[in-house]
């Protein structure tokens, strides 16, 4: 399996971070960074990471199913994650969630038909003092108002 030169360098460097004979430790970081480039954890990626860290594909599968950020199916180009945990709830994060579902016509972990936007109701993302908060891919948005969410989603529908 081939990766971009930048990712190849990164994966090679990650493998060097752990003590001799403990390369399995590189598995989760490798999956995370490769997933960002490929779009999902594919069968091919599982085999490749297993080979590089010296475990079986089954062992990789056992680990990846535990972690909520590793996903086997592609998400939308823009993965919109809305926090409804306690601090965001107190600033109506749950209403933002309902608003996004209604506007896009999709639910939790679903993708719009054009593949542009996916939605996920997430647990605390560490933005509690700046609630309600959402994340689009890795970017944080704080103090989100219903109007801002509306504009944001419109922008994501149109942007390239």
């Amino acid at each position, binding site marked *: 399996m081939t990766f971009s030169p930048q990712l190849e360098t990164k994966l090679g460097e990650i493998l060097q*971070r*752990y*003590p001799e004979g*403990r390369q*399995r*430790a*590189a*598995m*989760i*970081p490798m*999956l*995370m*960074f490769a997933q960002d480039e490929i779009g999902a954890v594919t069968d091919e990626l599982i085999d490749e990471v297993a080979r590089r*860290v010296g*475990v079986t594909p089954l062992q990789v599968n*056992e*680990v*990846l199913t*535990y*972690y*909520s*950020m*590793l996903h086997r199916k592609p998400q939308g180009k823009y993965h919109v994650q809305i926090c*409804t*945990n*306690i*601090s965001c*709830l*107190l*600033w109506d994060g749950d209403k933002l969630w309902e608003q996004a579902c209604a506007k896009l016509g999709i639910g939790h972990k679903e993708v719009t038909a054009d593949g542009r936007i996916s939605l996920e109701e997430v*647990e*605390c*993302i*560490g*933005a*509690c*003092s*700046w*609630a309600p908060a959402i*994340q689009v891919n*890795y*970017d*944080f948005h*704080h103090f989100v108002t219903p109007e801002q969410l509306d504009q944001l989603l419109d922008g994501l529908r149109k942007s390239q």
Partner: protein
Amino acid sequence: MLYNEPSPLETRVLTRRFGLANSASIDTYLANDGYKAFTKASAMTPQAIIDEVKISNLRGRGGAGFPTGMKWSFVPRTSPKPKYIVVNADESEPGTCKDRVLMEFDPHLLIEGILIAGLAVDAHKGWIYIRGEYRYLIDIMDKALAEAYAKGWLGKNIQGTGFDFELYTHTGAGAYECGEESALLESLEGKRGIPRIRPPFPAVVGAFQCPTVLNNVETFCAVPPIILDGGKAFADLGVPKAGGTKLTCLTGHVNKPGVYELRLGFPVKQMIEEVGGGIRNGKKFKAFIPGGSSCPVLTAEECEGATMDYDSMAARKSMLGSGGVVIMDEDTCMVKAALRIMRFYAHESCGWCIPCREGTTWLKKLLTRFHEGYGTRQDIDLIGDLSRNMLGRTFCPLGDAAALPTESIVTKFRQEFEDHLHGKPCPFEHANRLVAV
């Protein structure tokens, strides 16, 4: 740019460089006392470093509050195995967003704290385990690490001291459980994040079966000021059994939510009224979570005379926790709050221990039914019973973390549960709807 205006009531020790131009760069750090504590510590004996940390009364800032100097002294320095430093930057306790600002605005402070811990326990390698959602912080930390290597503050023979240290970031992949120290170590090793039985504790058998110092980001960040200004100066900022300051995340129904560095022992009422600007929309204060959703909830009455420190919270049968303060006003439905907190624990329970795996899901179902108005009087007692049956019956504290707030809410706000009985819709949402019309 900072996310919220600082408060004049803050005592800025860890956050003293926040707001400086390019505060995350090594040049800014070096121009503002950066790495001076490492230079000082490198001339001290390991025992003297540990003693200084003990004098400071620094207690773990991740939530458990264990004395840091004592934790470090448990590492067997003479062990032939390598020793490691692991930083818990898996900040995911609901209500908590303080490690984020520390890494974003002063990443070299964390690196320096790790180096000093390395000197103290003879460790030469370390990992910063950062939750996967904080990808931009991994980029910031990686950049800071590269700067430190380039300027000789990491790597071989650091600044001619003869001390070597290799430091790396390690990304998590979305799992609250991995904030628990033993599950974090499993995850670091490339496994599912399930907890380990203890003893042995990580100080003796930690990462890769080797002695390991594992502390929270804020704990490491407190170390350089302790070494630079002396343990006593740090201890004097706090209360007798807990020194220094605490980064406190004010969240929920206050006018000025934000992360503020307050000395330990800061009065709760003053924190809400003056630092937080009082309750939003002039409403009445109803309930308070001192340090993340795992802590038992306090009523407004219980907050009378309370201060933000370990003993004051323990006296009220709660905990200082992680510094994630959640403030709820009179319009908050406590059944809904309990339900949302339980939904979180049911989602995050790793499934290893049956009382937690089953208990959190049962409670989630019960509370959902309750909030929808289908609860029975018997259920109120069942919620308490189920919670109490999880307490102390799991490998790690997640079971307790789910049980404690629930038990406290159902006990202290029983009337609100009664108000949801007999098919009544949620009185709070019902009232709000009437107002909206």
